[in-house]
């Protein structure tokens, strides 16, 4: 019976089996150590580690965080120690607390940079998937984000595809007019999967100072407030591409996971919820079977045949 219960949550992500579909999203889980202090992170399907770039980055000036109703806005600016340190320090440390394949989240500011960073991660055995964040400005493209131009998105996909045998999951920005077009461009260029959504651009103003709250003025909105927008985009993308889609954006309950997967997602990432409720992912995993019972869902795999 126990075996069977565990089986209900199993999903496949680009050829690698996950014990359950719950994946902490990049930038909200560090390298896992802080969470390993309060629960066994091997309970997770996997997790996506902090966005990694070729060179170390300090990120944006502070304040980097603002609050909004049912969510938050961040302008961290991809602070990370750079891929070399990730390989020499973070991954060996991670191995001690996490025994499953991990998802490497990669960012870049030029096509060459994406390819170089991914090539360096190719030899890392524990890296199961590359999740390529294209919500970054292209320094050679007038600062326009790779994620807002299907040609640029395809070019990044091809460059990364060429240097790795690992599954390449392209992570889309929602700050576009036609999300399906972006997903289709990545699929055609050889992506093995799509994940979405990254944060939505937003800002807050402090009325006491009449200045923007964030030093960077604008940041990315995430949390429960973006869930309906994210779900809509996941639905559209699932009806456009054949490759697996990871749904994310505002997921904080088992029901949210089921909605995302009913829309067609193969797995689900959880971001901001980890920051305010460090046990959020564990709680969602534990609540999933009962939530499935409530809606007569025998196994998560049965949800993955979207129609309409």
């Amino acid at each position, binding site marked *: 019976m126990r075996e069977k219960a565990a089986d209900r949550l199993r999903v496949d992500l680009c050829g690698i089996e996950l014990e359950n579909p719950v994946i902490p999203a990049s930038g909200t889980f560090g390298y896992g150590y802080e969470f390993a202090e309060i629960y066994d992170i091997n309970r997770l399907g996997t997790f996506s580690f902090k966005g990694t770039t070729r060179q170390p980055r300090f990120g944006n000036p502070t304040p*980097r965080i603002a*609050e909004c*109703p049912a969510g938050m806005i961040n302008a961290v600016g991809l602070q990370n120690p750079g891929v070399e340190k990730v390989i020499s320090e973070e991954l060996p440390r991670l191995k001690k607390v996490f025994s499953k394949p991990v998802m490497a989240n990669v960012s870049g500011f030029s096509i060459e940079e994406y390819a170089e960073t991914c090539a360096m991660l190719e030899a890392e055995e524990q890296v199961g998937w590359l999740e390529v964040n294209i919500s970054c400005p292209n320094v050679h493209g007038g600062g326009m984000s790779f994620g807002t131009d299907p040609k640029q998105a395809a070019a990044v996909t091809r460059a990364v595809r060429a240097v790795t045998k690992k599954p390449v999951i392209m992570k889309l920005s929602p700050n576009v007019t036609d999300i399906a077009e972006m997903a289709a461009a990545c699929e055609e260029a050889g992506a093995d999967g799509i994940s979405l959504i990254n944060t939505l651009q937003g800002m807050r103003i402090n009325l006491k100072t009449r200045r923007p709250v964030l030093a960077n003025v604008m940041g990315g909105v995430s949390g429960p407030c973006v869930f309906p927008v994210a779900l809509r985009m996941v639905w559209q993308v699932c009806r456009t591409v054949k490759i697996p889609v990871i749904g994310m954006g505002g997921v904080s309950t088992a029901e949210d996971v089921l909605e995302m997967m009913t829309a067609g997602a193969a797995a689900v990432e959880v971001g901001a919820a980890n920051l305010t409720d460090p046990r959020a992912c564990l709680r969602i995993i534990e609540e999933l079977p009962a939530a499935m019972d409530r809606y007569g869902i025998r196994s998560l795999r049965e949800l993955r045949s979207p129609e309409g």
Partner: protein
Amino acid sequence: MEQTLLRIEENRPLTRDILKIRLTGDVSGVERPGQFVNIKLEGLFLRRPISVFDREEDAITLIYRTVGVGTRRLSEMKAGETLDVLTGLGNGYDLTRAGDRPLLLGGGAGVPPLYWLARVLREQGKRVTAVLGFNSAEDVFAEEDFRKLGCETTVTTADGSHGIRGFVTDAMPEEYSYFYACGPEPMMRAVDRRAKTEGEFSLEERMGCGFGACMGCSCRTRDGMKRICREGPVLRRGEILWEK
């Protein structure tokens, strides 16, 4: 870090905008003076970080100023209600550096974390001087608490309505072995300019998580990047890069 449900025993005003709240439950995560807790409040997405004013076996006390929606909501909560709290956050003060005559400098809402520190230093038999700065007589709190510990306590007010007129830097003693400072940034910069010894400051930053996961609170230091919530909030005088 621990996540725990704490019961409000008491939540009462000390001044027009300062309240003292006592919480009971499993506070085993709270280890050192200078650490803080992060409090979940109904209807608000982000938690609110507040320093630990004092710690007992099964209780902690916090002192907070109502400045916005979260602290106002906290001020409306009643005895018997529970709070979801992350405890044991941050590095806390380094007590090994105090020397025999430590000086504690607190300004306004920066006074609270110094109290538990003062108590531990007094228990170690140190001669502790506390200089507490406020705007006006009606804003003063915790003065008696520090006196009762046996600290040589001086209060300054900006308008001179209580204690010495001026800022904490106007009442710094001639002799001390080390200092611990917490308060508004202009006060801490002034302390940095005036201080004659090594010391440490507790800093503030807007936080996404409070436990090291989001990189929301990063700060450049002479020793590289630090997260205020994890490698801070207490930084040594010598490593801080005061910007501008």
